[in-house]
């Protein structure tokens, strides 16, 4: 299969199947959690649940060392926090605010939005790639983290890393012709889309669930820092 045909396949039928699987798979995962239900809450709340949720998201969204209590967790593994934070920021900027990605969203959602100039998106993509490499090295070296990491973790890393690198390479016309890299980029994205509901990358949804639920619990018990 030549690169042009592969690109057409990856942008066409393969993408179609991948995104359909992604939608079905994520809804399955969400339903699987939500319909478990909650146990009855008989105790009287000691604090505001809503405030707890707000605080919970602020705590998770901001870099943790600013909260004195998290200092220890940060000092123990600063790379996870710093590189991890930068990686997520980079992902958001590139995937949402990059012009090419916005056009993909636009074709799916029917509406578009303002995008950032290429040099900024490009810089953040480079930051994201460097952060990913640092996270991998850290995962391989950290005494605790390396014992927690199995094949699935490395596979997650690989499936996220390939689209990032091929995307960066295609913008810079590095090593391979543009359309070959575009084809690789799309194929890796499609595989990632299929993999997300089956893996912990689904935390892009469950993160918000757990933050909310923890916030409610903390707020209710008045134990929020």
């Amino acid at each position: 299969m030549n690169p042009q045909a592969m690109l057409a396949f990856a942008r066409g039928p393969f993408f179609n199947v991948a995104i359909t699987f992604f939608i079905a798979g994520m809804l399955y995962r969400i339903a699987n959690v939500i319909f478990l239900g909650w146990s009855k809450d008989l105790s009287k709340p000691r604090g505001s649940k809503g405030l707890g949720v707000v605080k919970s998201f602020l705590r998770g969204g901001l870099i943790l060392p600013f909260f004195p209590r998290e200092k220890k967790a940060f000092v123990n593994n600063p790379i996870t926090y710093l590189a991890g934070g930068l990686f997520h920021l980079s992902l958001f900027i590139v995937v949402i605010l990059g012009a090419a990605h916005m056009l993909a969203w636009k074709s799916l959602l029917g509406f578009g939005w303002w995008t950032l100039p290429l040099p900024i998106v490009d810089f953040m993509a480079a930051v994201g790639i460097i952060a990913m490499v640092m996270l991998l090295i850290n995962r391989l070296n950290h005494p605790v983290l390396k014992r927690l990491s199995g094949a699935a973790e490395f596979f997650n890393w690989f499936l996220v890393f390939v689209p990032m690198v091929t995307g960066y390479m295609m913008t810079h016309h590095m090593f391979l012709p543009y359309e070959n890299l575009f084809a690789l980029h799309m194929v890796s994205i499609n595989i990632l889309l299929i993999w997300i509901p089956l893996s912990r990358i689904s935390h892009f949804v469950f993160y918000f669930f757990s933050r909310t639920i923890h916030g409610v619990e903390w707020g209710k018990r008045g134990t929020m820092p």
Partner: protein
Amino acid sequence: MTDDSIYGHMKDEGVSRRDFLKMCGLAVGAMGMTSMPPLEASGLPATLNHVEKKSIDHVAKAMETQPRLPVIWLEFQDCTGCSEALTRANAPTLGSLVLDTLTIEHHEALSAAAGFQIEEAKQQAMEKYAGQYVLVVEGSIPTGEHAAYCAIGGRTAEVILKEAAEKAAAIIAIGNCSSFGGLPKASPNPTTAASVTDLITDKPVVNIPGCPPIPEAFVAVITHFALFGVLPELDKLNRPMAFYGKTVHDRCLRRPFYEAGKFALTFDDEGAREGWCLYKLGCKGPTTYNACASIRWDSGLSFPVQSNHPCLGCSEPDFWDGGGFYQGQSAPLQKPSMTTAGVAGAAGLAIGAGMAATAKAKKENKK
């Protein structure tokens, strides 16, 4: 020097030595020559190897020794747009160069003769110049049971092409239709149209795709072959590297706006008036290999992007099926319909809820 050489022919027409050398310089430029082709392979006199290493000297020497190149031009499922474009090859000197370097033996649209007479003339030319002529093909070829969609003189395009290709020295497929199938091959391809390379595998084929292609690209390739007897360097899709080596995006005059994130969002907004990048209006420049942005059209006057229209990608295979012309290039070509997405989502929800309910029931039973 022989009298039937290209230069001999030009001298007969009153071209001065000075004008001849100027034309050689033009030919060097037109061919985008930065280095010489392997001369041994061309069958030119060995003395050429000892001439000064300037391209223009080689060209002048070649023109003085090489006879004019016979060309047979076939048209199948086409619109004659490629021929039209070529007759407007911008610099008049380039046009005359073509006419001086070539003898077009057969071209239906340009011939005075018609009917069986033109067919007979073609057969004679093919006999006379067997193994020497260049076959130029314009338009795609219907195949299989649909072959009859294009027949000339009671014979199908496929038969005519194969017959002419057999005795050709080289084949030039001009335009996207003969290079890659073009519009006739667009989905659902009702005539099962094929490109020249789909059907001819035992001859050197140069693709000069475009809709129409840049006339200078054709002129350069045929001049190169006429002078040196070899084809220029080609890319993976058999396109001459000198013209199809870079993308339209690479050489685009609006590239700085792409880098700066300044895009026209509609055809009449401020960005469009300011001449900003057309990427968001569906420009296919980044994946389109062609020289539009550097050579341009009509004596270098303009090209689509300069006149505020996104590149359609007409020098690439299957560009008609590459998504909407005004749809961003990064957008997927296929996506699930609302119904499919709805059904898939509902199925996911139902199975998830079912699993959750089972798990809950199990837990309660344990209690």
